[in-house]
């Protein structure tokens, strides 16, 4: 693996090259003051000091609303798939890692999801290692880390006045060679500094007891802790909507005078309507079963089915929960 160095002065030129090939999204401060992954049109100032975005990169691969079919004269037809290349610069490693989980669900051979597959193929991820983990972060306990390259095409680490980049995929190699004149070979000092920085970031992340979660959750299925833990859950769905691996969706038709579309929209297992049968029967009737499902899905069922935790430790569900629910506590208690 050859590390390349990109000086801050050349960052804009690199993004310009990417703009020549497609749309570029990068960390930008929005009017409300949040740093978000937004389109980096020329001249927009890129923020490099941030913890993480409120919303992960998920919407770029699984949009909140996705057209599945068009309807014309009462007949279904394939919608056109996007052709444009997209470059995501500054995705945190946890959010890039989430793509491994989404890939398991949406790219499964026989039943490939064509919409996800296309967006995945057309979107390059340039992850930016995390230098300032938050108190809600626990990536190191779920197989990731502040500089985990999983899911990224390029991994960047920020140094004093440079970025150190390593290609993780052929796509990443391509991006590096397409702008080779902007990069220099990384100096041994830079490589060393990078390693130290990553280590320092890792040190800041408190471990969470995730090991053996599948077995522990199997044993704890009937535990009274689900009742107490879910008592305060409002069923608002914030955790799912912000979760980079939550992928459940609903489908609905929108048709006016014979023309329209079938869409899919994000959905959430915390909603009572999620599993409600037309007959009125609901297999998961209370917040207890619904919240248990969410934890079980991420830390047990996904492990059983794919040998992969469907949690990347980004901590959004903890940070944004209006009633301060914390899955770390439950993982510890089971």
């Amino acid at each position, binding site marked *: 693996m050859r590390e390349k160095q990109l000086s801050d002065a050349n960052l804009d030129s690199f993004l310009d090259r990417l703009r020549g090939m497609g749309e570029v999204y990068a960390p930008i401060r929005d009017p409300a003051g949040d740093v978000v992954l937004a389109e980096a049109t020329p001249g927009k100032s890129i923020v490099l000091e941030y913890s993480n975005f409120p919303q992960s990169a998920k919407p770029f691969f699984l949009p909140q609303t996705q057209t599945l079919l068009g309807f014309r004269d009462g007949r279904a037809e394939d919608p056109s798939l996007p052709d444009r290349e997209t470059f995501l610069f500054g995705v945190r490693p946890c959010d890039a890692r989430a793509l491994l989980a989404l890939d398991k669900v949406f790219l499964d051979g026989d039943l490939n999801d064509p919409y996800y597959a296309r967006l995945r193929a057309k979107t390059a991820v340039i992850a930016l290692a995390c230098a300032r983990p938050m108190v809600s972060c626990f990536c190191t306990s779920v197989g990731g880390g502040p500089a985990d390259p999983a899911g990224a095409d390029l991994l960047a680490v920020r140094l004093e006045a440079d970025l150190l980049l390593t290609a993780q995929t052929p796509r990443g190699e391509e991006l590096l060679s397409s702008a080779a004149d902007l990069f220099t070979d990384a100096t041994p000092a830079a490589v060393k500094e990078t390693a130290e920085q990553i280590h320092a970031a890792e040190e800041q992340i408190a471990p969470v007891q995730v090991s053996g979660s599948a077995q522990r959750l199997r044993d704890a299925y009937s535990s009274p802790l689900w009742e107490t833990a879910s008592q*305060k859950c*409002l069923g*608002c769905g914030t955790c799912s909507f912000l979760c980079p691996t939550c992928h459940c969706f609903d489908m*609905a038709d929108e048709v006016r005078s014979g023309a329209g579309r079938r*869409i899919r929209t*994000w959905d959430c297992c915390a909603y009572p309507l999620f599993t409600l049968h037309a007959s009125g029967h609901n297999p998961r009737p209370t917040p207890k079963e619904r919240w248990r499902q969410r934890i079980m899905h991420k830390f047990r069922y996904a492990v059983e089915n794919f040998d992969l935790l469907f949690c990347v430790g980004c901590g959004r569900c903890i940070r944004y929960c*209006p009633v301060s629910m914390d899955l770390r506590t439950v993982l510890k208690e089971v």
Partner: protein
Amino acid sequence: MMTSHPIEMRLRETAEALLRDRKVNLFLGYEKAPLPFRTAPLFITAAEEVERLVWNPFCTLNLAVYLPRLFAISAGARKAKAPPPLPTVGMVVKGCDARSVAVLIQEHQAPREKLVLVGVACQGMVDRRKAERALDAHEALGAGEDMQGNVHVVAEDGTEIILPREEIITDACLECRSPTPSIHDMLLGAPVEAKDTGAARRRTSEFESKPFDGRWAHFQEALSKCIRCNACRAACPMCYCKDCLLDQTRPRWVGAGADISDVTFYHLTRAFHLAGRCTGCGACARACPMGIDTRLLMRKLSLEVEALYGYRPGEMIDATPPLSAFSMDDSQAFLTEP
């Protein structure tokens, strides 16, 4: 501004007595949360657990949101000859919480006689987003309250920072006109006067000074962030409808997607359903993961309800809610050819 500590002690004593003397089956309060600038709702049923109760500048959540479900009678129980008795619930209420409880009582979602309301006059609760933003490059490891009631933060590098409370309390608190609970069975601490009774009006007038298209553009820009998670609805104590219009499929009133037209429909309809009922607690805005000012419309509607019908939800428990009543001489200046 004063420290909350004495209130916390009295709150624990009060809750303990209520639970010990079986005056309540359940006490609703707040406990320490894993992350700074937050507390978590706490449900306790035993006097021994009162030590978990806290009272501090982070008790932002409106606990009234839990009442409708605590008093909901399941279909099975309704059919039973002798339905199980309703619980008696004790809870700590701030000004906004008390207003919400009052509306829930008026709307028969919670029986007054089954509630023991422990009121605390509120000095304004912290908005975690404002606090986090005020720290800028720092990350809080812990936060507490100093003797003046300001927020004391320990940052990741060990630095200690004081955040003046006035600067980080929620927008709803800044606009609050009745920080002292309108209804309560006991009041801990002294009543508090509203800080700035004109705040909501000023914000509304400022928005109203823009032209139609400017207002629409602002409104659409704000809503373009909406991801339709419905957290604003879930967090609202007044949104207890079992079958929300916005979930209905026969007919489907509003599309499920993030189409701006559907998003707008959702927010307009929700706001309207809260006309004359919204108590301005701000739970919706705080629950919004995308940081949308969900109170933009509500602020205006509440002022309008007061101007037209002289009503402030939750502050007049014996009055008939304005949209269930009428007067022959209600204004009809808005009519075409009246």
